[in-house]
């Protein structure tokens, strides 16, 4: 069976903030050349001139759909030979500035160093729904290949005309077009000189196969690396404008509280301070952050609070408050679970609770806003610049054409920077102050007023035959989401369902979304089944898997890890887990050590095999895979947002534990390069299998089955 899945449009699930409305790009062709100088430009514009990309909003079917072919991206080859690509995607550490540049260089046949990328600027780049869902590589890579190929052909055409020869015989390489017959050549710079050639392209698929890539596929270092090690890169929070003020916003003491009275006489008496009040919005501006904070602290406000659910009761609350009417879009059924269970030799039921966790990107939400003649420019670290632009336009009742959102390469997001909170706050304060205003959230604000990866309850029921084959599979996720909810294992009788619950805490995207929770539940349950069946966990999985790519990552990880391993020390344990999501495959092995006396748990070694089709940049990919393992260890072992009476009770790094140097095991990433399969994204899937691998290893070490995340917030003592 050929199980290469090529149609892997992202599920825009509930917690992947919906795509924004579609918009025309409004930079006129003439403006484009004015801005960039003469040269050769290629625009790829959708048939209907609308930039329909990503999965359209409202389409939330359970099954994957083919991606729309309409694409928008463009490229300019200047008179100096500099190649500029334009994309609405944002760089936040996932290293797409590098990988996209590689792709352009590869297809245009120019040196990597001559390519630059303009990213995530609503006035300069094509519309983009946002940088999320592991969509950049599968959508942007083929788009830029098409654009670059077209630009190359345009340049060949110019040369052919110049020499009066047929273009078919000419060769493009090393930023030159050469006529092999006469040995004449023109550089791209020479060909672009004095031209304002532009071409619209239909979306075709003529791309260089991965086996012939020369620049792509190589472990090239991160673009602008020097700017990062010297501290010269300007993140949003680093940008300064003439006369700029610093802003702070008054927060309620608890979620859902409403303002009943404000006394702002004390801050108003402070030098250089402006207080801004607009309904429930109260903020201050001052000449420095410190003075702004003092002014904010001097405001006396009264609030009316309302009762709120606390973390102690969250899981029973989620289960009790699930929406009663089952929604067909969220349900997948085949065969009969009842019959499958009746036929089973062994049956198993498990319940898994998954806590809220925080993204905690090291650069907190930040925005700098400037109003000029009724037009608004905002620099902000967001994953959705165009949606932020639309939200700003809507909030301030101005046309979208009056708002420009620019995203400097950002201090990470992990799914946590979709919204425009800081941008709206900075813009409101700047309008009142009549000067540019910068708002940088404090760490406490970030831990409290951002949004979280939603908590969830997952119930699994299954049956296996005497020889260890799955006969029935029933899986219910309450609240946390649908990503990765479908089992990759072969089972004739299954029922998978997602149950919505009204929000308790503000919740949204997080690297991998609910796939981490769903994989944790599924792979923990599979491990328990293997134990019931008395079959080795790897063998048990392979027995129930026909997906060739999944089998490949499992076999690769087992080989590198040395599975099955014999225990040589007290407290040692080994665990395994695997998964599939968003076009890529992961399998992870973990070794743990448990100190039975102290309850101390250490993850000693992790091997992770990952396969995402043809690899664009193995070095960047390795960073993403190792990084996902480390980040995933936090949610696996100890991260949990705690809350009571509408207050987050651990909103500091001192209380909310994230992985630090001592938590990091020895990690090996095994990257499978499938040059025959289109490149998929790699930002998310590598985080999905670490939690169940560690949990299963802890079971192996102690005989204690841990069914909830985090696994061991307080260590693990033998029962």
């Amino acid at each position, binding site marked *: 069976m050929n199980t290469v899945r090529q149609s892997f449009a992202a599920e825009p699930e509930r917690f992947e903030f919906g795509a924004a409305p579609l918009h025309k790009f409004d930079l006129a062709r003439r403006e484009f050349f004015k801005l960039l100088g003469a040269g050769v430009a290629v625009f790829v514009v959708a048939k209907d001139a609308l930039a329909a990309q990503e999965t359209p909003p409202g389409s939330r079917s359970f099954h994957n759909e083919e991606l729309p072919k309409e694409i928008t991206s463009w490229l300019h080859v200047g008179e100096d030979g500099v190649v500029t690509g334009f994309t609405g995607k944002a760089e936040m550490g996932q290293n797409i500035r590098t990988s996209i540049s590689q792709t352009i260089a590869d297809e245009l046949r120019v040196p990597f160093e001559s390519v630059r990328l303009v990213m995530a600027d609503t006035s300069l780049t094509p519309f983009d729904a946002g940088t999320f869902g592991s969509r950049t590589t599968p959508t942007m890579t083929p788009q830029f290949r098409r654009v670059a190929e077209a630009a190359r052909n345009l340049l060949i055409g110019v040369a052919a005309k110049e020499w009066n020869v047929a273009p078919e015989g000419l060769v493009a390489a090393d930023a030159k077009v050469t006529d092999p017959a006469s040995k004449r050549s023109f550089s791209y710079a020479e060909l672009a000189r004095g031209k304002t050639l532009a071409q619209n392209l239909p979306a075709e698929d003529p791309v260089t196969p991965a086996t012939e890539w020369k620049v792509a596929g190589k472990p090239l270092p991160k673009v602008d690396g020097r700017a990062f090690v010297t501290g010269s890169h300007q993140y949003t929070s680093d940008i300064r404008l003439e006369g700029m003020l610093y802003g702070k916003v008054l927060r309620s003491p608890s979620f859902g509280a409403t303002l009943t009275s404000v006394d702002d006489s004390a801050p108003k008496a402070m030098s250089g301070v402006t207080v801004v009040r607009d309904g429930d919005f109260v903020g201050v501006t001052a000449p*420095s952050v410190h003075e702004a904070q003092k002014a904010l602290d001097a405001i006396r406000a009264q609030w009316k609070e309302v009762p709120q659910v606390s973390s102690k009761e969250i899981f029973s609350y989620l289960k009790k408050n699930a929406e009663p009417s089952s929604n067909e879009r969220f349900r997948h059924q085949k065969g009969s679970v009842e019959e499958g269970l009746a036929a089973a030799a062994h049956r198993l039921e498990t319940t898994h609770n998954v806590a809220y966790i925080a993204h905690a990107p090291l650069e907190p939400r930040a925005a700098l806003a400037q109003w000029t003649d009724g037009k608004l420019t905002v620099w902000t670290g967001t994953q959705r610049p165009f949606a932020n632009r639309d939200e700003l336009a809507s909030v301030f009742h101005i046309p979208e054409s009056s708002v420009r959102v620019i995203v400097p390469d950002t201090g990470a997001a992990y799914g946590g920077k979709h919204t425009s909170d800081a941008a709206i706050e900075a813009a409101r304060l700047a309008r009142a102050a009549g000067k540019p205003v910068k708002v940088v959230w404090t760490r406490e604000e970030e831990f409290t007023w951002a949004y979280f990866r939603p908590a969830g309850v997952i119930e699994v029921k299954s049956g296996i035959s005497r020889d260890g084959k799955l006969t029935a599979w029933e899986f219910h996720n309450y609240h946390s989401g649908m990503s990765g909810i479908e089992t990759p294992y072969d089972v004739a009788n299954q029922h998978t369902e997602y149950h919505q619950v009204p929000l308790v805490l503000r919740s949204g995207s997080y690297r991998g979304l609910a796939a981490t929770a769903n994989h944790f539940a599924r792979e923990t349950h599979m491990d328990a089944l293997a134990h019931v069946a008395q079959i080795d966990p790897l063998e048990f999985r392979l027995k129930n898997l026909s997906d060739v790519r999944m089998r490949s990552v499992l076999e690769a990880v087992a080989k590198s890890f040395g599975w099955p391993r014999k225990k040589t020390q007290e407290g040692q344990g080994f665990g395994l887990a695997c998964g599939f999501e968003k076009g890529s495959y992961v399998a992870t092995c973990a070794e743990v050590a448990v100190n039975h006396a102290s309850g101390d748990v250490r993850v000693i070694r992790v091997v992770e095999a990952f396969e995402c089709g043809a690899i664009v940049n193995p070095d960047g990919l390795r960073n993403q895979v*190792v990084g996902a393992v480390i980040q995933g260890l936090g949610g696996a072992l100890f991260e949990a947002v705690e809350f009571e009476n509408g207050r987050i009770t651990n909103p500091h790094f001192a209380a909310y534990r994230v992985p630090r140097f001592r938590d990091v095991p020895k990690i090996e990433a095994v990257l499978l390069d499938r040059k025959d399969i289109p490149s998929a994204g790699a930002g998310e899937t590598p985080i999905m299998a670490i939690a169940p691998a560690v949990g299963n290893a802890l079971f192996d070490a102690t005989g204690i089955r841990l069914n909830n995340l985090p696994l061991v917030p307080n260590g693990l003592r033998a029962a």
Partner: protein
Amino acid sequence: MANSLEIEVNGKRYAVSYPPDTPLLYALHDELGLTGTKYGCGEGQCGACTVLIGGAPRRSCQIPVSAATAKPITTIEGLEKDGKLHPLQQAFLDAGAFQCAFCTSGMVMSSVGLLQTNANPKREDILQFLQGNICRCGTHPRVIEAVQHAARMMLERAR
């Protein structure tokens, strides 16, 4: 001006007009425009704001600017000499030891502090010393590799 504080940063003297109880971080980052030093938590927990004061790594978010006038301060901007990167900067660059890189300045400054007191640190020393620096992207193994590599380079150079 009531405030006429002076601090020495990267070999230059600067007048600071921010109130004296302002954390050094904001004086450096916002008033002097030395934006390589980052705000990550304001609580001394993440290490992104690490600078050297009198050669020792300190969390600049925890020190009032008035307490930083006596000793010379070095920020990430002060490491490069005559267009040549400090061996630690070069090692981070060579190892690709960053992803979003928001922690990088603090990681480099803490590591400079480590190598000044311990020229040949064991892996365990590096873990211990960098335990207070958070990297959310999970680039820790490459940071360790970079520090070890820089230590070797600096020892060879000193020979």
